[in-house]
């Protein structure tokens, strides 16, 4: 299957096979007007199989959100048909308004105008802690 190379845009590469749809939804890519290709089960030398998302426009992608949902990915920024930047994703140290605290006793459950903020406390196990109530996530 052929998908044309993009001229100006973003390629999210090395998404764990089967997770492409989740990434697509988490980044709200369905709201874009431009062409977006979600390619699943692509052959990969490294992992056997992977998913790829191609976005045919240089949008402002929330890299913290992407790093949280898919830290295994690499993001390629394409300009005039050329690769201008390749960025390896990793878990962000803080998450602002990406996830919400599930603790019903947390102040964020009632105070509507505050940011939902989490800090990375354990990188290996992907553990975040709410800055307000310190619940783990």
């Amino acid at each position, binding site marked *: 299957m052929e998908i044309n190379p993009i001229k100006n845009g973003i390629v999210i590469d090395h998404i764990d096979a089967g997770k492409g749809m989740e990434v697509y939804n988490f980044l709200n890519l369905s709201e874009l007007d431009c062409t977006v290709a979600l390619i699943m089960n692509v052959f990969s030398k490294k992992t056997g199989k992977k998913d790829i998302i191609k976005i045919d426009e240089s949008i402002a992608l929330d890299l913290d959100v992407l790093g949280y949902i898919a830290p295994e990915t690499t993001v390629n920024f394409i300009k005039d048909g050329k690769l201008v930047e390749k960025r390896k994703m990793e878990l962000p140290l803080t998450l602002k308004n990406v996830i919400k605290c599930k603790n019903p*006793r947390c102040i964020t459950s009632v*105070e*509507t105008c505050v940011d939902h903020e989490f800090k990375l406390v354990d990188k290996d196990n992907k553990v975040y802690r709410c*800055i307000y109530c310190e619940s*783990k996530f």
Partner: protein
Amino acid sequence: MRNLLSITDFSVEEVNGVIETAQKIIANPQAYSEKCKNKIIATLFFEPSTRTRLSFESAMLSLGGKTLGFSDAANSSSSKGESLSDTIRVVSCYSDIIAMRHPKEGAPLVASFVSDVPIINAGDGGHNHPTQTLTDLLTIKTEMGRLDNLTVGFCGDLKFGRTVHSLIQALARQKGIKLVLISPEELTVPDYVKHDVMDKNGMNYVETRSLEEAMPQLDVLYMTRVQQERFFNEDDYLRLRDSYILTAEKLQSAKEKMCVLHPLPRVNEISVDVDADPRACYFKQVKNGRYVRMALILKLLGIE
């Protein structure tokens, strides 16, 4: 501008500094009676706790300052749907320092984001209650003469007791502390306290089911209540309850120089026949609560 939201907001030196000031106040209260003249503390109690509120108000009055506030969310504008942030913005215009209690965890942090004056956390749900911890530390320091090289027993409900968790957190920063954790199996210290505080700081600790066995080695015994609602069935509760009640008889095997603490209010976990024992320090603790809050107010207002 400094706040006290959690005991770990202060370094060990700062905690020691507050305790030292409190001891100076105890020695000569008169010298401090006008330190906060023209200063106002707002005590905002979104959840009632008469004891804690009075201790803050008493502390500020003893420094020559004034107080205002509310004792219950029903008496505040939050009952009309005002956000916490807005309440704090308004109150910080009327006061020089705020002590607040709120049923939601992390509420004081939200308050600190919008306040123009220092915030003291007077309890946020089951989360933090740092002024109780300062009170506990002052009492231990006064009774035992030191905060390091102590064997400290915690007895009762170690699972839900936030005062237990934050005192452990404070002691974790002292040298030579040995913890003896005395509780029924259902109410042991939660894993996150064990991992994140005790193991991380390399604390020396043992867990036991028996208060009698632990008693002879303790320098400090911190009692808490085993509440019936923590148990699934009444039989378990009734079976266990008595093992975690301190009586004069059980205290007989304790060291001559040691102290018994309790965050109060007590129900039946310390029998009244212990009260007359010189090692019973839980009422002294209340007095210390006032002095340590005086010292804290001075520190946060930057008054020498």
